[in-house]
Each structure stands twice: as C-alpha cells, then as structure tokens.
C-alpha cells in the first residue's frame, strides 16, 4: 500500500476519533482539583502502618509488591531476550573475552581521561548505592539506584578501554546478580506463605519512622530490585557494546535455527 493511502487512512481515523476523544477530554475531572480516595488513603494509612516516609516506595515495594515483581520479571525477560538475540548471533564462545575489531584504531586515552573517569565512576557507583539505600526515606529507590550503578559501570569503559573493562565487568557475574535479585524477590513472596501469612507479608520488624532501615521486608525488596536492575541494565549495555565489535568471521546464525 503506498504511503499516500496510509496517510489518508490515518487522517480518516483521526477525524473519526476527534469527537469521541473530545467528549472524553471534557468529561475528565478538571486538572488539579481531583483527589482520588486510593491515594488519600495511602497517604493517611501507610506512614503509621509501615514506619516509612517515601509513599511511592511503600506502594511499589509493599502495597503493590506484585506489580514490582511483574516489572522485575519483565526486566529478566528483556535481558534474557537481548542476550539471546545479540550473543546468540555471535555464537556462545566469543562472549567470554573481548573481541577486537581489526582495523579499528585504539584511541589512546590521555592520563587525564583515565584519572577523571576512575574518580567519576567510583563516585557515581557510590551515588547509585546511596540513592538505592535511601529509597524508603527520600526520593529514589532500588530501581533508580540500580540504573545509576549500571551507568557508573559503563563510565569505567570510557576510562579503562574495552578489553580492560570487559575483564572487570563479567557477563556471567551480571547474569547471576540479575537472577539472584529476582529470586530474592520471589523468596520474599514465598517465605510468608510458609508461615501461613499472605504472600509478600511484611514479617520483619518495621523499625522507627524516617530511619534508613525502617520498613521490614521493604529493605530486602529494595536491595533485590537494586541488584536485579543493576545486573540487568549492565548486561544489556554490555551485550550492545559487544555488538559494536562483531568479529570478521560470519558465525552460524544462532542455535535455534
């Protein structure tokens, strides 16, 4: 179908959607005046019930823990899919060591770059850990901290160069980290069942309000999410970086085929 027909079809559907969309937009509650009972109840009940001050983290890790477990499984799924898609095509054996693309000049890194990157990478790494740790008290949390840790590990590449970076950041360790984070989260769901309580029940002592380690199992879930996200995103970035150095020889396309 030629592009003209597609644009025409899209225009027709937009014109047909306009009246219905406008009636929905007008019927929506006016911006900023609407208070939803669910949110108001969370703000009222949860600080006292779970001694935690970050309501978003409380909703994420305790009230609606199952959504976050689904989210972690999605990350597990995407990481496994990306690894299969990218590493599978290159063949299993080459992923261990860093491949060099012949003919690509190795940019000589100046000492200033190496120093600044080492300093910035460690600082960023500890900032990621800080954001993950303070997830239940101030804005932040396992997910944001994990992604900051992943970007810190990538910053190492800028300073150390590809071969050395691959020796520091191992694919196998990352997949274990990813699996361990997800498994820990599932165990947090399973163990209360053994005690006859509901799944994901907060069985650990809740600690004092506004304290760093308040919130019982929420601290464990926060750590599990941080590990899974850090391992997952680093593995995705690592596989993509490996892709930019595909070897000359054409490997057999994947083992599934």
């Amino acid at each position, binding site marked *: 179908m030629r592009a003209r027909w597609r644009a025409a079809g899209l225009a027709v559907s937009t014109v047909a959607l306009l009246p219905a*969309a406008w*009636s929905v937009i007008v019927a929506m509650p006016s911006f900023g005046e609407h208070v939803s009972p669910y949110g108001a109840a*969370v703000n009222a009940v949860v600080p006292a019930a779970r001694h935690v001050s970050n309501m978003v983290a409380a909703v994420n890790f305790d009230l609606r823990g199952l959504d976050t477990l689904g989210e972690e499984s999605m990350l597990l799924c995407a990481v496994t899919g990306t690894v299969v898609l990218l590493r599978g095509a290159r063949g299993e054996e080459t992923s261990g060591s860093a491949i060099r693309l012949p003919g690509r000049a190795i940019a000589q890194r100046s000492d200033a770059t190496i120093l600044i990157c080492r300093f910035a990478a460690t600082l960023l790494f500890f900032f990621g850990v800080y954001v993950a740790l303070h997830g239940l008290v101030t804005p932040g949390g396992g997910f944001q901290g994990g992604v900051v840790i992943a970007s810190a590990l990538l910053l190492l590449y800028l300073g150390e160069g590809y071969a050395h970076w691959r020796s520091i950041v191992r694919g196998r360790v990352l*997949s274990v980290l990813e*699996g361990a984070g997800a498994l820990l989260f599932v165990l947090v769901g399973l163990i209360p069942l053994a005690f006859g309580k509901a799944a994901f029940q907060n069985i650990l002592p809740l600690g004092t309000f506004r304290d760093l380690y308040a919130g019982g199992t929420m601290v464990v879930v926060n750590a599990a999410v941080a590990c899974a996200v850090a391992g997952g995103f680093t593995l995705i970035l690592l596989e993509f970086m490996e892709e930019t150095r595909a070897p000359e020889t054409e490997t057999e396309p994947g083992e599934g*085929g």
Partner: protein
Amino acid sequence: MTDPASLLPLAVLLPLGAAAALLMLSHWLPPRSADLAATIVSLLLALFCGWLAWRGLNQPLIHWFAGWTPASAGRPDVRLGISFVADAPSAAVSALYALLFAASFVFSWGYFDKVHAHFQVLMLLFLAAMIGFCMTRDLFNLFVWFELMSIAAFALTAYPLRESSLEGALNFIVTNTIASFSMLMGIGILYARTGTLDFALMAQALAGHGGALAAGGFCLLAFALLTKAAIVPFHFWLSDAHAVAPSPVSVIFSGAMVSAGCFGLFKIVIGIFPLDRAVIAFVHDGLPWFGIVTAILGGLTAWAQRHLKRLLAFSTIAHLGIVLVGVATLTPEGEAGMLLYIGGHGLIKGALFMIAGILLARFNSCDEIALYGRGRALWPAGLAMGVGALLLANAPVGLLYRAGDVIDNALGWRAESIAAVLSSALTGGALLRAAARIFLGCSGAPGPERSAPTEREREKSDRPLWLMLLPCCLLLVLALLPANLLEPFLRRAARNLLTASNMHPAVMNGAPPDALTPSAFLTPGLAVALALLSILRLRPVGRFARFAARLETLPFRVLHILHSGLVTDYVMWMALGLSAIAMVFYLR
C-alpha cells in the same frame, strides 16, 4: 495451611522462582535439567490450577497480597492491596494453559541444547504471566501481566534469529506495544473516573450510567485486548508472528495466548462493566459483528495459504472470531460454550502446530506444495493431522463441536451460525487439502494458494519422532473427550460468575439436544467437499476455465495484498479499527 486461598500465589510465584533460579544457575546446569525442571513445574501448575478450579466452583478463592485486606484500608471505598481471585473459569483456563505449556516443553525436548536454559526461562515467565493474567482482580496488575506476556512472546518469536523471524517479531512488537500503551491510557481514564483499581469497586462506581469516561476507558481496553485476541482489523500481526516463531512457541501462541485476549475481555466486561448499560449494549450488539467478520475473513485467508504455519495462524484468527461471539452472548451457557471452545480449540491447534513442527524437523519445510507426497513415511503424523483437521471442521465428536453448538444456541443469530459453518469448513478443508497433498500425495493444480507467501526454514532435526508425536496425540485425545464431562462444570462456573457480578443473567434455557442431527454433518461434509474440490482441480486449459480461475483467485489476491507484512499498514488498520469502535460508542 491447606486452605487453597492461602496457596493461591503459588500459581504465579512458582514459575517466576523457577525462571529466576534457572537463569542464575544456567551456567552450571547439566544439559537436560532445564527441560526436566520446566516440564515438572508446568505439570505441577496444571494439577494445582485444576484443584483450584474444583475448590473455587461455589465460593471463589480470594487472596489479598501483603495482607492488605479490605478492612486494613479503614475506608469502605478503598482497596489498598492487590487481590487474586481463583473463580472456576479462571482457574480452569489457567490449568489448560499450564497443560499446553507442559506439552510444549515435552515437544521441545532437546530442541535448544546449545543455549543456557534461556528458552525455558522465557517460557516459564510466559506461563507465569498468563496465569497471573487470568487470576488477578486488579486492573493495573492485569496490565503488568499483559505486558510481561507480550515481552516474553516478543523474545520467543525472534528466538530462531532467522531474517523472517526477526521481521515477524518486529511487526509483533510494534503492534502489541501500541496496544499496551492504549490499555494504560484506558487504565488512567478509568482510575480518574472511579478512583480505584480493584475490579469490584470499579463495578460499583460504574453501576448504572458510566458516562463518557467509562465508554472511553472501555474502548481503549477493548482495543488492546482485541489486538491480543487478533480480531479483524487488529489481527494482521498474528500471521507474521506465528509463521516465523519456533513451533513449540507457536503451540503456545495459538493454543493459549490469543484466547487469553478474549478471556481477558470476558473478565473485564464481567468484572468492571457488568452494570454499565452503554458498554453491555455495545458488547451484546456490536462485538458479535466483529467476531463474524473475523471468522469469515480468517477462514477465507486460511484457505488461500500454502505455508502450513501461516495457514494454522489464519485458522486461529477464524476460530477466535467464534470465541469472541461466545464472549458477546453474556449468558451462562454462552460463556460456558466460550470456555469449552477455548479448551477444545487450544488443544487441537496445539496438536496441529506440533505436526507442523515435525514436518519442519524432518523435511526442513512446511510448505504444502513443496512437500507434495513426501510425507508417506510419516503416516502417524498424517493420521493425527487428518483427525485434527476434521475436529477443526466441527466433526460431531469432542469438545469443539459441543462448544460451537452451545454458542450457536446461545446467540441464535442466523449470520453467526453461517459464519461459524463457513469458517470451520474453510479452515478444516484447507487443512484436509494440505494433509492430502503432503501425506497421500494426491495431485491437483494449486489454486489461490500458489501466490501465498512461503519460506524454506530449518528446525533442529535429530529429535526422536515418538517424543514429538507423544504430546501431539495426548492433546488430540484430550480434545476428543466427550464434552458432557466438562460442560455441566463449566456451565455452573459461568452461572456463579455471572450471578456474582449481579448481571442477573436471563433464565437458563435448556442445553441444546445432544442428538446427532443431520445438520451436524453439514460443516465436516462441506470441508471434505472443499478439500476434494481442490485436490481434483485440473489445470485451467480452456479460455472459460482460465477466466474462471482468474475470477476465483481475484478475492484471494486482494487478501494477499491486504496482509502486506508492512508494520506501517498494520498500525494504520489498528487506528481505523479504534476509531470504528469509538464511533459506534459515540453515535449510540
């Protein structure tokens, strides 16, 4: 401890835990342990969900996660936590899906040996997502499982890393991701309107006249679920995704994932909009027409295919049209018929995709014309394919025939029964034609299927034939079970569910007679006639014969052009479909 409601989360936590453990230990596992673990987990889940269905028949089992029961919110109009509710239909459908996964794991034994259990990890996440999708009673949780189901399916479709499977996966991802974004917009609108995400509270808030927000929210949710259920005009992605996915994955796609879309729509209509007059009017009067058009279009396109997996994909689209009609009946026996149809169709389509997998493994192709007469050595597979084709053609035995009969009786529309007869005859006839060509070597010039898209593909071939045929025959035997074992159970389950959502269903009119009326042989007879017609077709020689042949292939050529394979066309058709639904609502 043995109270089933407290064990309910195991249905989801078990596969997720198994997947995480397999990923973590993937480098140190002995070769076949991943296959074994996955098979055991899915069989365990099939039994567990069957037990839940049995226990949840009269009183649905409810499990509030993290202990946030309704009382803990301190306000009657708020539910702080997420709940799983195992009513009999949801648990029965989950048991069917777990069984299909177990059969697929046995069929794919040793299929992927060089990889570190990645296939089993993705399939277990897929299974967990489908069971969670059936069980949850929270709208955003339903979206999370819908999305996890999609992402696992995306990765599995692109698994063989062939050019066509990657392009098929791209079409699949773009169309389904747009559908899930629109579902999230629908959830945002419904959250603004009702202030909660729990099905029961939303139903209370939307009782009577839900207003434009309920209609808009339903439109966007229906758009996403109809895309997943591959209903015309949202169905284009399905044939590309199924034809290129590995066959054990196609077994799950056609057998389980597509019907989950229809089942999700059923649960949303029953759970959230039972008392919203505008939505119920649309579902009861508008949706059957979508189903009828899908059945007819799917049947016709399936008739004009030569690539077996593409043919099975279009036959899935056709039969999902009938399932959608079952959803739209909104009466206990109509819904019982729909559940029976999902079961029967899932089992038969799973078995047929396994046969396509066997052909791929043995002959590196599943193209009907290329495999002409080469299947004689594999006569057991041919026999199974013949039985499957006859069952799809509504042969008067087994689950599918009974289900189709019950749905016809429940809706009673003349157009619907014609569409059901036509689509079953066309899909059954196409499969009989393919079976005759591959296994019996009957000749016959290819008609409209000559110009259908096809491809030479390769699947791992050193797997023993008995290991591949065993699950296929098991599924066919289950599909041949007399329906009167399951039907009363499903009928009571559907009745309890409808009364629970106080839909006060119409009085239960009697079940259709079980006698073998002569009309029962109309559809299979038509299917056999169509197959014979194409087998005995002579090469058009005379001027009139050539003109007739060209006239005959004209509609099919239009269908081939329509299913162009371009994702940009597909998205445009989806936008048109969404505006069609919105117009029907707006003009009412």
